């Protein structure tokens, strides 16, 4: 038996040295059972005491690992690297797209302070303003700062940085995430905001940024039957995404009439692809600007 105990202890030590603490623990337990169940071991209590010390040390190791922060604040150098490595848009195309992706990556890695700095800068870029504002609110909520998020929203609602329709979309977005997180919403515009004292950090760990950058639609009827068509998202508000369709693509326009249900859609977010369904909720022809004549199509995301 002592040979068996020795071998098990040796394995436990090796697992521990490999960082396989769960496996090490199992081996120690086995040894404990063996020793406890034996009447022949002369130094039984001494062995059990020794083993207990080993298990205690192992438990401490486990505790240290379990208590380690999952998103510690990183150095500026690491944050720069994260931004560089996890922004996938070509900087030659639009530097602000790349900057937005970098900032979202920082937020995904839990680097909220760094992400907030980046999103703040992007508020100066007209085309990214709404996305940046949404993500600023997200970050504050992830950090448990619901009051700051609400104050920010109120500030933007009162100011003229955002267009009226953007303000509305932002308010809807904020409402949605508060609801998803089970947080009671504070009044947004009214100054006489009343008692929100009980609205403390019940934020969950889940933190998906469901900003959709592109979609791939597989058609089950019409001229594109069986084909998959990829389209970039030009704008998003909550669960409604807007796409631009060239006026030349008559077949696609034909396929995407208002009310058409799209059962097989891949939604591309900056960090993942989700498969789901959508409903064509609006189609309007663009009256001016470089896309004049093309169509702006709204798809309501029904499931992801």
């Amino acid at each position: 038996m002592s040979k068996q105990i020795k071998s098990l202890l040796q394995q436990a030590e090796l697992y521990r040295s490999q960082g396989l603490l769960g496996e090490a623990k199992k081996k120690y337990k086995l040894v404990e059972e063996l020793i406890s169940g034996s009447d022949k071991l002369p130094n039984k209590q001494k062995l059990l005491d020794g083993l207990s010390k080993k298990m205690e040390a192992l438990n401490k190791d486990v505790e240290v690992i379990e208590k380690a922060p999952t998103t510690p604040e990183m150095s500026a150098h690491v944050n720069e690297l994260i931004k560089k490595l996890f922004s996938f848009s070509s900087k030659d195309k639009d530097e602000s797209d790349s900057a937005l992706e970098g900032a979202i990556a920082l937020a995904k890695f839990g680097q909220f302070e760094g992400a907030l700095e980046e999103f703040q800068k992007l508020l100066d870029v007209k085309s990214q303003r709404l996305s940046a504002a949404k993500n600023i609110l997200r970050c504050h909520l992830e950090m448990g700062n619901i009051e700051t998020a609400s104050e920010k929203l109120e500030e933007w609602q009162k100011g003229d940085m955002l267009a009226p329709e953007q303000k509305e979309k932002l308010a809807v977005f904020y409402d949605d995430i508060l609801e998803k997180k089970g947080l009671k919403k504070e009044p947004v515009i009214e100054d006489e905001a009343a008692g929100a004292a009980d609205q403390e950090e019940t934020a969950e760990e889940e933190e998906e940024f469901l900003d959709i950058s592109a979609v791939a639609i597989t058609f089950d009827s019409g001229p594109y039957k069986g084909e998959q068509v990829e389209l970039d998202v030009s704008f998003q508000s909550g669960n409604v995404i807007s796409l631009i369709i060239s006026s030349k693509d008559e077949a696609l326009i034909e396929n995407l009439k208002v009310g058409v249900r799209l059962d097989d859609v891949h939604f591309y977010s900056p960090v993942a692809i989700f498969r789901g369904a959508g409903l064509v909720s609006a189609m309007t022809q663009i009256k001016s600007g470089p896309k004049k004549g093309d169509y702006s199509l709204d798809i309501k995301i029904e499931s992801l």
Partner: protein
Amino acid sequence: MAVFNLKKREIECKIVYYGPGRCGKTTNLEYIFKAYKKQVEGEMVSINTEGDRTLFFDFLPMELGKIKGCDVRVQLFTVPGQVQYSSTRKLVLRGVDGVVFVADSLEVRREKNMLSLKDLQQNLKDYGLNIFKIPLILQYNKRDLADEGMPIMPIEKMEKDLNRQLKVPSFPGSAVKGEGVGITLQECLKRTLNSLQKQFNWAQK
């Protein structure tokens, strides 16, 4: 998602080391960093937590020089293996061109290997990639532990568990001793560059 600059004739690709926690992904990169100094471009970055566990990722940039008239750069990444870091793992996998799956040869880690491979398959799928099509190499790591009397799985068993359907190249390894590390990387690079050749036709004939 390799970056190909036609004008400068430069290609940059991304290889990710995947596998269960504590299987030796970081050790692979550490060995590459030491053994391939000439090709390493800059420093290896490791973002760890307690117990030397990878928290976010390890990153090692390499410059392979000119291959078929093109300057080839490679970014090597590891993912955090622990189950609880699934969202980070997925994030790191984004834009991957080739994968090295590091499996732990220890008998007690058999199920973890299989779960991790399944996790890889699902994450690739979420990015629209197919595990059967992406350049993939398996490495059966920690073979050296047999010498210390530890119960490890025979290669045949690991092949059955992990490679029965995939049928990709696999290599035994001991990352801590550097055994099998080079060949694993070389084979993955070869397959990745061939795959990119089919997509971009980057190589000069």
